[in-house]
């Protein structure tokens, strides 16, 4: 019978981690900035948006609708159609085609990516005009 001394000793070497600080990111207390180019939720700079509807056309998931804003004050002078995009996060897959195609770079992806809701109907919002989940208590964290 052969006893594998190295196998026993090597396994025991894992015990050294007992005395080392853990590598955990303590999330709610310590937050980590997302990497550059991370695709989080949308933001729309309404002072630039021209309402061309390119984002709606290119979205293959039909996640974007062009809708009338709640107030004309949201529109800028160059907005031809008087419409701004509305996102459905029950469809979006953050492929970033809408922001790539945007001719005036008004639609962008931010680094926020945490949104939780107890109601599945709360995942629709108009970037720039309102915040995601503003209709109820939850806010973008």
């Amino acid at each position, binding site marked *: 019978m052969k006893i594998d001394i190295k196998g026993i000793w090597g396994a025991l070497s894992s015990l050294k981690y007992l005395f080392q600080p853990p590598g955990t990111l303590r999330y709610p207390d310590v937050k980590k900035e997302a990497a550059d180019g991370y695709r989080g939720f949308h933001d729309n700079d309404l002072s630039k948006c021209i309402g061309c509807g390119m984002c709606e056309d290119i979205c293959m998931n039909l996640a974007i609708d*062009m*809708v009338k804003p709640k107030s004309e004050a949201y529109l800028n002078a160059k907005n031809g159609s008087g419409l701004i995009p509305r996102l459905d996060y029950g469809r979006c897959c953050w492929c970033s085609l809408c922001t790539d195609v945007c001719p005036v770079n008004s639609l962008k992806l931010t680094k926020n990516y945490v949104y939780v809701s107890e109601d599945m109907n709360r995942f629709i919002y108009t970037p720039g005009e309102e915040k995601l989940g503003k209709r109820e208590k939850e806010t973008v964290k």
Partner: protein
Amino acid sequence: MTETIDNLLERIGRNFQITGQEVKKAGLAALHCSQEQLHGVLIYLKEVEKFDTLTMIGCADWIEDDYFELSYMAYSFTTFFTVMVKIRVSRDGSSVPTVEGIWRQARTFEREIHEMFGVDFPGNTRLKEFFLENWQGMPPMKRDFDTVQFVKDHYKLREEGREGACNVSVERKKRIDAKKLELKKEGE
């Protein structure tokens, strides 16, 4: 003499009626034959040329020319060649005798094609439903299958909160007309 894929194709062409052949890249050749020749070619590949395994059976729907193209991909572990044997079958009510007797794994590939394209494989011992449960109507991978219409009929998409979508060109035209009207009034 080292074995090349051209030699292989030449030998096959000597024994069978091959309607077309092409070498796609090194070690990968495609040849077309009729449905009657299929079993002969495959048995020849397996028994004589030692093609040990069937890697897959593919099916493509050429709706414009009204046929399915079935590709049987055989692979050899001795020469590392892949040969695709392609046959054409009609799109409606087509049936191809099974090749389960040559390579047993063909059973599963045929089962999938039967489910997704509706091609019948007489002789297959396990030709029952596979991924889809309780599927009625047209097989879903046929190109004339309207998936959007199917989804509208069978599932409910969430409409709540998505009301009030406008057409951009209509709205733009409205605004231009309104602007024109305004300018006209000012002119008067």
